[in-house]
């Protein structure tokens, strides 16, 4: 991104169609006072007395990917945005390759954040791998969950006998190649963030031109953990009301997988979105918002 001319930050909720620059800057209020909140760059906005709603991004991005969705929830909800460790403005020094060698490591972080903020009856919205992370958090301790929204979930990406995840193991190895082949792109986007992050993370985030910054080394490991994990067994233990959102023509999480997730979670509802691709939070934020709102109304 070489040319950009962000309008001056304006407080409050963005009107009809929020501009990405504007939203990123006005809503981001880094929370201090707690290691957990710092570690995951937890940012709060919206109505402090409203029902909490937590948005968690998937592999390859950061909390920025919710920019067009979250403003719609700010009037009625306490909106909680987080960066998984290794992504966005998270504390990359907190990355422990053993802890984060399974999605449970990330799920434990979610539970810690919910406890640190003392969230109750929370709506958890997880995109892609963060949907599975939410399932693991809920099945570990459901006490703070009021609703689960799984956006384009897949408990296992690799085909296995009858189960069609959509990919072969070799495809995942190929993704790691692709990550390596695009390594420079990643590290370039990282550079300003790292520089900015050291002393003033808030400044670093605003000054950088980059989006969805991800530490390349961590991204390689996270890719393995995301795409080589098998969490099918964990689905049936979910007890919280759950919304499974299935996109159209999603090669990452095909329709059969969405149906599988719905069948495994007895408390779930399956809703098919018209949105195409894997990221309705970017391609169809309004439709996604409507689906979530209807479910938690």
């Amino acid at each position: 991104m070489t040319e950009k001319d962000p309008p001056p930050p304006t407080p409050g909720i963005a009107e009809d169609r929020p501009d990405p620059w504007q939203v990123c800057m006005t809503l981001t209020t880094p929370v201090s006072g707690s290691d957990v909140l710092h570690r995951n760059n937890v940012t709060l906005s919206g109505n402090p007395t409203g029902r909490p709603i937590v948005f968690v991004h998937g592999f390859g991005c950061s909390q920025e990917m919710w920019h067009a969705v979250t403003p719609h929830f700010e009037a009625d909800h306490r909106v909680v945005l987080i960066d998984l460790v290794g992504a966005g403005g998270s504390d990359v020094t907190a990355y422990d390759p053993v802890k984060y060698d399974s999605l449970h490591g990330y799920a434990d972080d979610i539970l810690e954040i919910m406890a640190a903020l003392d969230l109750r009856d929370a709506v958890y919205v997880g995109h892609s791998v963060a949907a599975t992370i939410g399932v693991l958090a809920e099945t570990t301790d459901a006490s703070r969950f009021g609703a689960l929204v799984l956006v384009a979930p897949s408990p296992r990406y690799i085909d296995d006998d009858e189960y069609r995840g959509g990919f072969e193991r070799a495809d995942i190895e190929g993704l790691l190649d692709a990550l390596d082949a695009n390594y420079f792109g990643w590290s370039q986007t990282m550079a300003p963030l790292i520089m900015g992050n050291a002393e003033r993370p808030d400044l670093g985030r605003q000054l950088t031109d980059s989006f969805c910054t991800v530490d390349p080394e961590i991204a390689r490991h996270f890719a393995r953990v995301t795409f080589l994990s098998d969490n099918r067994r964990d689905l049936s233990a979910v007890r919280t009301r759950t919304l499974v959102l299935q996109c159209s023509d999603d090669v990452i999480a095909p329709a059969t997988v969405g149906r599988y997730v719905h069948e495994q979670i007895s408390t779930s509802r399956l809703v098919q979105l018209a949105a195409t691709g894997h990221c309705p939070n970017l391609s169809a934020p309004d439709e996604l918002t409507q689906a979530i709102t209807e479910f938690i109304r």
Partner: protein
Amino acid sequence: MTIADEASVDREPDEPEEEGHDALQDADAFEELFEDAPCGYLETTPDGVITRVNRTFERWTGHAREALLGTNFIDLLNPSGQLFYETRFATVLSLAGEVREVALSVRCDDLRELPILVNAIKVREADGRPGGIRTVVFDATERQDYERQLLLARRDAEASETRVRVLQDASSAFGVATTARELADALVASASTALRASSAAVLLADGTGPLELIAGDVTALELFDAGLGALAEQAIGSGDIVTVADLDQAAAILPGLDDALHGRRLTALSIAPLRTDGRVSGVVVSLFARDRVFDTESRELQAALARQAGQVLGRVRLQEELAHHAMHDQLTGLANRKLLEERLDGAIAAAARSRRPVSVVFVDLDGFKAINDSLGHRVGDDVLIEVASRLRSVARAGDSVARYGGDEFVVVCEDAAPEAAANIAERFRQAVRRPLDSVPPRYSIAASIGVAVWDPTNGAEASTDLLLRIADEAMYGSKGAGRDRVTMTTIDDATNAAHTRLDQDQRPETRWEH
């Protein structure tokens, strides 16, 4: 300047349109420039459906224009490329409005994969609505081949460097281990690092005994009955590494093992046998929180670690054996004088800290010399072994029983006040008196016993030498008083003088010396 401004400059709007023939020629030239540009060119809807494509892209991919139009760009990519496109490319493009030099691979009509470099830009309509995506594609076959070779070479180099480092680190950590426990700790650390395991554990068997957890995660023990024990036996029996790659495999090997693993957030494990002096003496268990593929490389690394550890274990066991020899009486297996003195040093220090009494019981055999002289040293040795075993069996669990000299034994009893010490000494006396298995009935032995009790609360100072000397003197007191009895002494004044008193309970065998 905004993206929309930058991207929508197809033609300057305020430039006057040229007339007639020239304009047509220009249009042809522009069309040719578009169609046969030295790069592929595509336009798609915001969702990625191809709406325009140039001839170069058709030619490179072999896909006909009719097939390309209406197809989603992502469907042209190989599966890995699709993963990257959806999780990274599309996200950044959507947020930043642009991506540059992204390496992907397109599936051609003949199923060949064409490596490409892609620049893409998000276009906005004049009213600010998303207008679509313009994508330029470069053939990156040569560059990607070259980069791929570099990448593979780099990965190979990194892998072998990691391997060498792991083994070197392990080698130096193992090298400084002086006990099996220290070695096991080092092996747990190496195995965890080398395999990126959630945790690891080392289980060793002493001789033919059962496997015992020496170091690492107790989860290994918890899983023992659920199937890990059987798999460990299999590894030991076959001498090969045994692995469980995922929960389905675990269930197939042993029903229930999958649930036991899943309940502990584990999905995979591997067990490598530890071979010492040609014999398998234990296993190193690695536990994983995520499915694993145990390829040749990781198996070799495990095997190499286990081999190194096994060799060191042989050396450490030998050292431990030598250390044991140096500290123990070879005949009876009891602690020798050196170890006894060390333990008494420790007991006195502990007593001083805890303000609890410590007692030293000195046992000298009566009648042993006669057996040794008339029946020979071999029988004498048998008697000593028998006496040692009796003393050990009647001593309390924590007491240190030592062979002090030829037919002298010393027992250190921590936390033993005079009453308790007198009881223990009396048990020793009776144990020694019982008829011996190793000699004819007409031979019998007895014990002259002296006890020195030090109670730190009395204000007296004590030392190993002092306690041993006082207990020895008390033992001579018993001998002088007619043998087969116990003499109690206490060290209870600031001058360290020993006070021996007559036994209060008037037992003929036990007396307190004045």
